[in-house]
């Protein structure tokens, strides 16, 4: 005789219905290492066929699975091997052509995003990488679902400052090419320090060279579940109790994600990869990481104390999540994208949250400066400086950091960029007006840091 507990059932339904518990993404990680050839057309065809072969049932099976458990799966995505590797053997590689083929395959199988238009250049460029970099803006401007990422630094290799400069140019080019749509191509491009190999989240998902042929990686969500639990906690509860509560809720969220991931992987007959513990917000009321800080007792995100609140949240989510799953990976932590989080947007509007505070917060969160809109006339050198600072935090602290920043052409501080859907609305933020040009233009490679004498 099976047993059921009424309270557990009601709690779960509340989590889904009121607090937006959902699976943010199921991401099919797919290796394209067998798609290389000397002809760009042939490589494109091989990539297209492979995506169709492996992903043709992804969307329908995901819908079937969400129906069985009544937990929404918000996005279905694909992460490919870095295209810079796959295209490099072609004679006169046309990366934009490959990008379009991938996008076409993505449309055909009905996924929301397809990532892996990526390059890993933390130590330097190959000839192919250089060519690839040049073509990123056109590729992003001419496709809908394609996402691109580049790794610019690691704790082991240091930071490729020449690549940082090129990346700033790419971001500006992307912004200009899509200026009629609030520079949206920039939202599909991210640069990393210490990029992870099994990330299911966009824009940075790719299937690294050390990954299996294919796997299903899961990203959960549910900041609303955590904030409502904290709100219901005794107002005098100390931070130890708050942390413990977050752990418990993270455990529940993660087990739901793992169950659905495994079930879907089984249906697709592919291995289950990892579950990414990240708390991903969405631009809806009650689905916000900033609201967790408010539930903890901060008036707005960005108030003094926010870095600690985030550090504690991140740590507790990891502790609870690792208990719930055998295979945890990806970025795992809390995301703090500005445009995708209503509480963050409100905090910016209240002048509580600035780009400098966000930078400090990225030293303890799972990713970095994410979905931040800045004035369209920001000089490329300032963008390079912002990236360089973020890469430095990642390199020194041996963690992943990223920058996804949008210089919105034609708009200035105080205005808004509208991206729609999960990408939300971004207030244009103030940046430092003084020049970093002579510094960043020195270029070269920043040496890898010492890994002892940690102070």
């Amino acid at each position: 005789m099976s047993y059921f507990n009424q309270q557990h059932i009601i709690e779960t339904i509340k989590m889904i219905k009121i607090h937006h518990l959902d699976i943010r993404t199921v991401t099919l990680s797919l290796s394209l290492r067998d798609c290389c050839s000397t002809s760009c057309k042939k490589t494109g065809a091989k990539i297209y066929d492979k995506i169709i072969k492996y992903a043709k049932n992804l969307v329908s099976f995901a819908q079937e699975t969400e129906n069985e458990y009544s937990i929404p799966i918000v996005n279905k995505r694909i992460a490919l091997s870095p295209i810079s590797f796959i295209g490099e053997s072609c004679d006169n590689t046309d990366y934009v052509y490959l990008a379009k083929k991938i996008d076409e395959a993505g449309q055909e199988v009905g996924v929301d995003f397809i990532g892996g238009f990526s390059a890993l250049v933390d130590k330097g460029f190959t000839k192919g990488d250089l060519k690839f970099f040049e073509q990123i803006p056109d590729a992003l401007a001419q496709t809908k679902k394609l996402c691109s990422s580049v790794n610019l630094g690691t704790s082991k290799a240091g930071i490729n400052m020449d690549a940082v400069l090129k990346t700033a140019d790419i971001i500006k080019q992307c912004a200009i090419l899509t200026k009629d749509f609030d520079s949206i191509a920039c939202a599909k491009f991210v640069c990393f320090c210490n990029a992870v190999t099994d990330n299911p989240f966009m824009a940075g998902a790719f299937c690294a060279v050390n990954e299996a042929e294919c796997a299903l990686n899961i990203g959960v969500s549910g900041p609303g579940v955590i904030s409502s639990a904290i709100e219901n906690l005794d107002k005098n509860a100390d931070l130890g109790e708050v942390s413990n509560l977050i752990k418990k809720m993270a455990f529940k969220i993660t087990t739901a994600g793992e169950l659905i991931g495994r079930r879907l992987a089984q249906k697709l007959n592919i291995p289950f990869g990892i579950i990414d513990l990240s708390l991903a917000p969405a631009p809806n009321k009650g689905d916000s990481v900033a609201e967790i800080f408010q539930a903890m007792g901060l008036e707005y995100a960005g108030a003094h104390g926010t870095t600690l609140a985030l550090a504690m949240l991140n740590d507790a989510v990891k502790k609870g999540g690792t208990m719930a799953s055998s295979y945890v990976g990806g970025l795992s932590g809390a995301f703090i994208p500005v445009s995708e989080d209503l509480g963050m947007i409100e905090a910016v509007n209240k002048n509580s949250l600035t780009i400098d505070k966000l930078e400090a917060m990225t030293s303890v969160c799972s990713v970095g400066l994410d979905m931040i809109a800045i004035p369209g006339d920001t000089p490329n050198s300032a963008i390079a400086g912002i990236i360089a600072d973020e890469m430095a935090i990642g390199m020194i602290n041996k963690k992943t950091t990223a920058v996804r920043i949008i210089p919105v052409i034609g708009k200035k501080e105080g205005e808004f960029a509208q991206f729609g859907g999960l990408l939300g609305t971004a207030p244009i933020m103030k940046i430092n007006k003084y020049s970093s040009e002579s510094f960043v233009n020195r270029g070269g490679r920043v040496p890898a840091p010492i890994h002892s004498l940690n102070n």
Partner: protein
Amino acid sequence: MKNDDNKIIITVTGIDKVGIVSAVSACLAEHSVNIEDIKQTIMQDNFVMIMLCDIKKIKVSFKEFKENLLELAKKLKMEIWVQKKELFDKMHTI
């Protein structure tokens, strides 16, 4: 554990009225879904019924069965959730 795949939880909530249990049970019987346990309460003036059922002998697909139940929910002006039981077992036990 294999059996658990056939266990589902049906949660019916809404304003209490005559005939809810009868209508839902009739629909389940029509689909050859066996009721193993029922718990019923009133929470904040709302009728809440939770049923543990087995769908081993179900005649249609899970999707179709669920659609039919949701159709009934509309008619009854109640909210009905149909979920595999495994979800609750995993989420709330270590």
